[in-house]
């Protein structure tokens, strides 16, 4: 695991993640102001000693709001990804293990589902379920499921052709033993890598839903929503959109870089 910090990407990714996770854990304590505190006399101020990142249209401290929003953002990204990964893995592993026409049918269906862009898929589901953070998270998870199913299936299949699995089959091991002891422990690596990178997509999708008013609702400190709310004031104080934008980018980039470094550690041969 220490190898991760040898990669420059891994190092930068870890630093970004540490920063964002730190904000998620300690944000509420570190925040200099109450994120919902209206200060009508200090509206739309630029960065100053009192407000490091300035204030928004209600005079709320932007830094405090970003620190408070970190937890929701991380929870959203990780939660949605976990749900999607578990659902996708179950479907993909089933397809890979059962094989025959069941596999073909599942895979063709997944091809079809993947033809709908992630964002549109998510929007459709949110519309059906209704907005709000919980529903948005579920929608992102559903949208991730087909892609994760395909990846877990190919991970399982590539392990299944390895000779130690063949040896187990030849030995007369049960299907369940082969899956649990031989195949799954060796396919978690690629799945963890993919999941880590997907968290960054989930964060971006969550922010986009917040921005479109279909995810988190006011007065949430969700970063996408912050940008949407401050948009009409963006020319008066660019900081109220730039700061949450940078926060989103840092989070997404952190997970992305970290995931890429993990891939290199798990599979030193792949140079991607």
């Amino acid at each position, binding site marked *: 695991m220490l190898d991760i910090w040898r990669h420059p990407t891994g190092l930068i990714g870890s630093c970004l993640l540490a920063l964002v996770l730190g904000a998620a854990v300690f944000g509420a304590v570190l925040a200099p102001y109450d994120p919902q505190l209206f200060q009508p006399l200090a509206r739309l101020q630029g960065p100053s000693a009192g407000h490091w990142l300035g204030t928004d249209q209600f005079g709320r401290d932007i830094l405090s709001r970003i620190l408070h929003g970190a937890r929701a953002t991380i929870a959203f990204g990780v939660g949605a990804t976990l749900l999607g990964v578990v659902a996708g893995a179950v479907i993909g592993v089933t397809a890979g293990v059962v094989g025959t026409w069941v596999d073909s049918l599942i895979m063709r269906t997944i091809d079809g589902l993947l033809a709908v862009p*992630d964002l*549109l898929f998510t929007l459709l589901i949110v*519309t059906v379920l209704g907005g709000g953070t919980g529903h948005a998270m579920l929608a992102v998870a559903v949208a991730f499921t087909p892609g994760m199913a395909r990846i877990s299936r190919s991970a399982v299949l590539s392990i299944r052709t390895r000779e130690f699995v063949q040896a187990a089959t030849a030995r007369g091991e049960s299907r369940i033993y082969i899956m649990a002891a031989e195949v799954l422990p060796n396919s978690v690596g690629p799945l963890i890598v993919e999941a880590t990178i997907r968290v960054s997509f989930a964060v971006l999708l969550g922010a986009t839903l917040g921005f479109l008013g279909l995810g988190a609702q006011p007065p949430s400190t969700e970063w996408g929503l912050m940008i949407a709310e401050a948009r009409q004031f963006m020319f008066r104080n660019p900081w109220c959109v730039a700061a949450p934008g940078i926060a*989103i*980018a840092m989070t997404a980039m952190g997970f992305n870089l970290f995931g890429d470094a993990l891939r290199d550690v798990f599979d030193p041969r792949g140079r991607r």
Partner: protein
Amino acid sequence: MNAAYLGRRLASMMLVLVIVSLTVFAITLILPGNAAVMILGEYATPDQLRVLELELGLDRPWHVQYLGWMGKLLAGDWGASMRLSVPVGGLITEALWRSAALAAAALAMVMVVAIPLGIVAALKRGTWVDLAISFFAYLGTAVPEFVTATLLLIFFAAPDRGWFPAGGFVPAAENRLLFLYHMCLPAATLSLILTAHIARQVRSEMSDVLASDYVRAARLKGLPERTVVLRHALRNAMAPAVAVISLDVGYLLGGIIVVEEVFAWPGLGRLIIYALQNRDLPVIQAATLVLATVYALSNLVSDLVIAALDPRVRYA
């Protein structure tokens, strides 16, 4: 390229579209809150719902509903928008062309910038040029479209500068220059993210090819570096890169929804948001199907391009 290959590709594309149509149908009609609820809202009375359900034929079995809907679609009857009271067909076609113009502009920018960037990064692997391009590529994929769009607006469309319009649309037929002028910022937003992603992929494919045995063999034949890169490496790196670009059309179609919303570009994306917000079912269904068709077609085209680039596929 043989007819059987094309035939199989077309068949699997058809299947994909059938599955998409089933999904759209399922999402809009079967999941909690059926179409009647979607149209009337959560506070409709049971009686109102009942009437509308009968009117829409929601009491029939699902497969009958589905076949009826598909039959109409295939016959060219796309229904009428529930809110705008105009035929969906015309609405979609008009929006589709506007979106297509935007997407084409973005893709063109991407091709011209991303592919050379990726190649340069691979050739200069490990140098600061590579690092800078790679950093930009990571950054680009980490910033969502709406943030890029907003930042571009702040820089280029602030009222005191006014270099570019903050949004809106002028039909090309009316004023070609103004049409292009309005397209600049949205197209730039879309292409930034795609450029980042595609440059990264091209770099990775190109690095793999440059490390291959046959490129080494070409160098050891004494061919000049220029020939090695252009004749031996590029073609082999392009086939997988094209596959990635066609997958990125999926991102592009998603991104276009947000970008059109931010820049008030009256294309398919904006139409979809409008339809979703207003629960305009026929429009949602048609627009989703159209987007999926575009995506499936782009995959088909990319397969054909790959077949043209790679003789192993061509003669398979």
